[in-house]
């Protein structure tokens, strides 16, 4: 009897600490291998910022006043820090930062992938120099920056400022103000419902697919890349298209006008009004072509 009791006690003494270690590990494992999850209560409009080095960042807006973070790191010598303000109560400001614990960490081990579900009213600042960024369904202001990664943003209604040195930028169904800049990357705007859109790239191409809003201002500028506009025949806009070394090819009916103070140098330009000219569209390229054509 005594021996049995001792034996049971011993087993319990061994198993309980073991379970204390194994259970969290099992829960983490259930979330996905190497995945770490964190949830923070926030206000409805917190400020969220993220500094990553390399990897994929996905940010989605949701209706909860919470930030739910899931991340994986490619190396134990990489860690993710979170800084939350204020210290108590719903967070008004959260900053996530990927830290290299070893400066000599090989490039392929510097990867941290993030998935963030955040309140739709949160303002965002994301920097992911060597990785891609995808954002969906947000309503507040955002600044998104990458160096080599592509950036894709869908259904965003705040003021959006997007920079990528070499990555492509895709903005789908934005309804706030949009500013998108790249050097060698392409810019792609799809179905914008925004009244202020500014896109600029040096050697990339610009493709705008959608309608122009009444009283909207659209400024698209490429250097050596082409600028393509594909819009419905019912679109109403005043057009200024200028290229120095390329061509302007327009296949939509246009009431042409002469510009009184035309900038010198635009060897190929088209100034005119399509339908009633409710929006203002300014397209420029130095050596690329500019094409305006109707949607099929």
């Amino acid at each position, binding site marked *: 009897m005594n021996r049995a009791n001792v034996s049971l006690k011993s087993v319990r003494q061994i198993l309980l600490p073991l379970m204390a270690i194994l259970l969290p590990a099992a829960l983490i494992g259930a979330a996905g291998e190497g995945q770490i999850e964190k949830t923070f209560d926030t206000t409805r409009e917190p400020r969220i910022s993220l500094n990553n080095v390399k990897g994929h960042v996905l940010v989605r807006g949701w209706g909860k006043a919470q930030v739910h973070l899931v991340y994986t790191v490619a190396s134990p010598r990489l860690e993710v820090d979170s800084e939350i303000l204020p210290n108590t109560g719903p967070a008004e400001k959260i900053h996530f930062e990927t830290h290299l614990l070893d400066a000599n960490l090989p*490039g392929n081990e510097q990867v941290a992938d993030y998935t963030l579900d955040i309140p739709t009213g949160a303002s965002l600042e994301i920097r992911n120099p060597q990785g891609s960024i995808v954002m969906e369904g947000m309503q507040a202001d955002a600044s998104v920056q990458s160096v080599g990664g592509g950036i894709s943003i869908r259904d965003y209604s705040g003021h959006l400022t997007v920079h990528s040195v070499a990555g492509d930028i895709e903005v789908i169904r934005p309804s706030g103000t949009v500013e998108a800049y790249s050097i*060698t990357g392409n810019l792609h705007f799809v179905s914008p419902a925004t009244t202020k859109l500014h896109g600029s790239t*040096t050697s990339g191409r610009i493709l705008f697919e959608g309608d122009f809003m009444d009283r909207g201002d659209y400024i698209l500028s490429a*250097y050596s890349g082409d600028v393509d506009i594909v819009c419905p025949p019912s679109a109403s806009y005043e057009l200024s298209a200028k290229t120095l070394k390329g061509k302007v090819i327009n296949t939509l009916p246009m009431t042409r006008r002469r510009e009184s103070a035309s900038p010198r140098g635009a060897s190929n330009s088209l100034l005119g009004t399509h339908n009633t000219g409710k929006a203002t569209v300014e397209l420029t390229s130095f050596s690329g072509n500019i094409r305006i054509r109707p949607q099929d």
Partner: protein
Amino acid sequence: MEEGRYKTFAACSRFDVELEAYLEGEARPFIASHARQCGSCGALLADLQSIRQAARELPREEPSGVVWTKVRARLEAEGAFGLPNCSRFEDELEAYLEGEARPFILSHSQDCAPCGALLADLQSIREAARDLPREEPSRAVWANVHARLEAEGAFGVPVSGWRQILAWRVFPHAIPVGVLAALVFLGSVLTLPSSSIQSWGGADEAANSPAVVRVASAMPAGEDGALARVVSDLEGNFRANEASMAPDLKATYEKSLVSLDGSIQECLDSLQHEPRNTLAHDYLLTAYTRKAEVLSSALEFEGR
């Protein structure tokens, strides 16, 4: 007799008039002389001086908060802090001018002449401003405004431009501080007339820099030379630090810089043939600005 009574009455009246000023410290010799001649006025003066003396000797007591609250409430009720309607007018005026429905503004401006005059002035200024022709500032002006606002930290979220990268962690690093200063300088230079820049030799010095010798020969104006010098300085910093940069990141920056250098060179060639080609000049300024931004970004990320 009658005349004497009249003189006495007149003197006492004068005493009454001047007494307050005398008690407040003004030099009024008549008061003292009349007090000596007139028993009743002398007694009044003596009483007042003794009261004042006694008051001076009283201990100083701070009234309770309740007393002050009551005093303030009473004063407010009497309009001592300004008319409540005028205060409300001031509070709502900005919103009204920005297009919000504020019926109180119109009704109060009809009842209150000063507020009505203020509203009329502001509306006439607004009308006059609307009639002004719309002028689009040059890129140079925007660049300067943008650089200065960024330098002053005027942009929170949303953040725009590579320069915010600097703002985030600018102080621990000397290079980004220099870059930021250079960008401010870049913006400033853009707004200066060409003659000013030429007077401090921007174009000549820029032309002497090895990094811009190739482009300097084609420079049409001093401001572009000064810009080239700023970009050249940034590029010098970049080259000095590029070894510590991650190889793939460095390759990305190199590719972008090649692209920008190509556009700068092409613009300069165009300007050499057509010095007044404004489109080429605009693109040149944009390319320099973009290059400065890319270099700033690269300097920030070096070592990562």
